[in-house]
């Protein structure tokens, strides 16, 4: 009985329930059946599968990542709303996670004919020649010697939607801003695009991205900022926090904007600063002084945003899932930006 009670408590606290919305039977059992790799290969993508590298990376405990997209033949991405691209049914995206050169997991999302997205993740076998569909509840603490602390959490299906369905579009990291040719040299953890990777210009040239506003073709999308450090910091927050903290209808009802806009970067920057600088917020811990703010200019020790990025306690950490380790490089960047902030920051750069 005692064990049952303990299990109940643990389940209530630690094991988010899984929405019963995904048809597991319809998902391919193996990654090799999803159409990522050419026939007979487990490394060479198909010719119609395109690699890409976002300029601002999501921190994933130091994992090396590679990403691909396939847009159905004859279809195109509607970019008329440049911050909320509409992907045609049949669009597929993959993201491969590796530690120490060993492929651990490849995540997969696909837009179905009914317009809904489905999510899956595949765990690589020891031979490295294919990956198998993970259970919808994920695989917590998978033993991976090359991963930090020798463990790796394969996310549950609900974890996929927790991040991917909080933004204007479920596709994160493949957008006008992320694929701009005007890449940020200070962005942490940047993987230089590989040969053959596509950027925004290439996608437009191939006709895979259509109806992008002309202004964004003439002027490459870029985070607006008062300094190079601020540009990189806002870009980092965009990639790591903006998928929930945004102004879309899908975002969380918290008055905090950390997503940046390709269409109106001045407005999104202004909204980020307005919603953070000197704003008390509701989060408090004994570690923070009474006058803490989401961001306290020149005072990282009073900045709640930084405190939560630094936390890896389950109840307080931000982002709330997906990592066990903090990101030293990202933290240093955000702290440097906060130290630079001044009362004149609201002025247009």
């Amino acid at each position, binding site marked *: 009985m*005692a064990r049952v009670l303990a299990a109940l408590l643990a389940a*209530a*606290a630690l094991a988010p*329930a899984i929405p019963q919305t995904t048809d597991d039977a319809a998902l391919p059992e193996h990654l090799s059946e999803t159409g990522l790799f050419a026939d007979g290969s487990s490394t060479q993508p198909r010719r119609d599968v395109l690699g890409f590298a976002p300029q601002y990376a999501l921190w994933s405990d130091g994992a090396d990542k590679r990403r691909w997209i396939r847009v159905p033949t004859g279809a195109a991405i509607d970019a008329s709303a440049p911050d909320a691209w509409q992907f045609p049914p049949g669009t597929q995206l993959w993201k491969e996670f590796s530690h120490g050169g060993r492929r651990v997991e490849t995540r997969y999302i696909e837009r179905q004919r009914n317009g809904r997205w489905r999510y899956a993740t595949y765990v690589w076998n020891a031979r490295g020649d294919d990956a198998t569909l993970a259970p919808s509840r994920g695989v917590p603490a998978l033993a991976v010697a090359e991963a930090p602390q020798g463990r790796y959490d394969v996310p549950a299906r*609900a974890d996929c939607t*927790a991040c991917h369905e909080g933004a204007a579009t479920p596709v994160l990291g493949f957008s006008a801003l992320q694929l701009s040719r005007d890449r940020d040299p200070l962005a942490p953890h940047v993987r230089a695009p590989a040969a053959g990777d596509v950027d925004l210009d290439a996608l437009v040239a191939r006709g895979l991205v259509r109806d992008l506003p002309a202004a964004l073709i003439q002027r490459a999308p870029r985070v607006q900022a008062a300094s190079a450090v601020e540009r990189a910091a806002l870009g980092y927050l965009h990639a790591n926090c903006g998928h929930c903290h945004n102004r879309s209808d899908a975002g*969380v009802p918290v008055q905090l904007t950390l997503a940046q806009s390709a269409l109106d970067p001045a407005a999104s920057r202004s909204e980020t600063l307005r919603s953070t600088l000197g704003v008390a917020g509701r989060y408090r811990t004994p570690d923070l002084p009474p006058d803490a703010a989401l961001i306290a200019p020149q005072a990282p020790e009073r900045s709640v945003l930084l405190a939560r990025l630094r936390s890896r*306690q389950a109840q*307080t*950490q931000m982002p709330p899932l997906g990592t066990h380790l903090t990101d030293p490089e990202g933290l240093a960047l955000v702290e440097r930006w906060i130290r630079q902030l001044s009362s004149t920051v609201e002025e247009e750069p």
Partner: protein
Amino acid sequence: MTRRPVLVPSFWAVAAATAVATALLSAVPVARAADSRAPEKVVRGKYLVSTSGCHDCHTPFKLGPNGPEPDMARALSGHPQALVMPPAPQLPPGPWLVTTAATNTAFAGPWGVSFTANLTPDADTGLGQWSLKNFMDTIRTGRHLGRGRAVLPPMPIPVYNNFTDDDLEAVYSYLRTIPPISNRVPEPLPPAQATAAK
């Protein structure tokens, strides 16, 4: 680390209180006029809230002539803002696991300290800005707003996840009709900050 045998008296206390509170609350009137667009849904929501133990933790208890009873003047407003809890006592090794506030709105255990949420439609401190989707995502995923930290014990997410979508919409609809109460519930405390000095 030594695994301790586990017994949760407060868990049983909550369960017992459920029966008492259910009886007490069966006569609680809907405080506002029912939503004219879906009165049946609101009535159904009130029934579910009143029979599913929501008040047991989300309405602070006060000491009445016959013992603890829900303070309906603060119905569903969560842990009282003014009740600043001291550090939870550190329990000795053994079967005791959870400590509960007299209000039945704060719970200390291995997860830290959890405080029950303000479910009233107050815009600043309650669910006033929550959409139906936010509410359903929270119950369905066991994560705050469907995206954030895990919802903590003793919230019985695995039980409430058995509600149908219609049930959850009814509960949400009813919660929109109750009086908004301004009461800013503290954020949960992690284990390191939950207990008194060792």
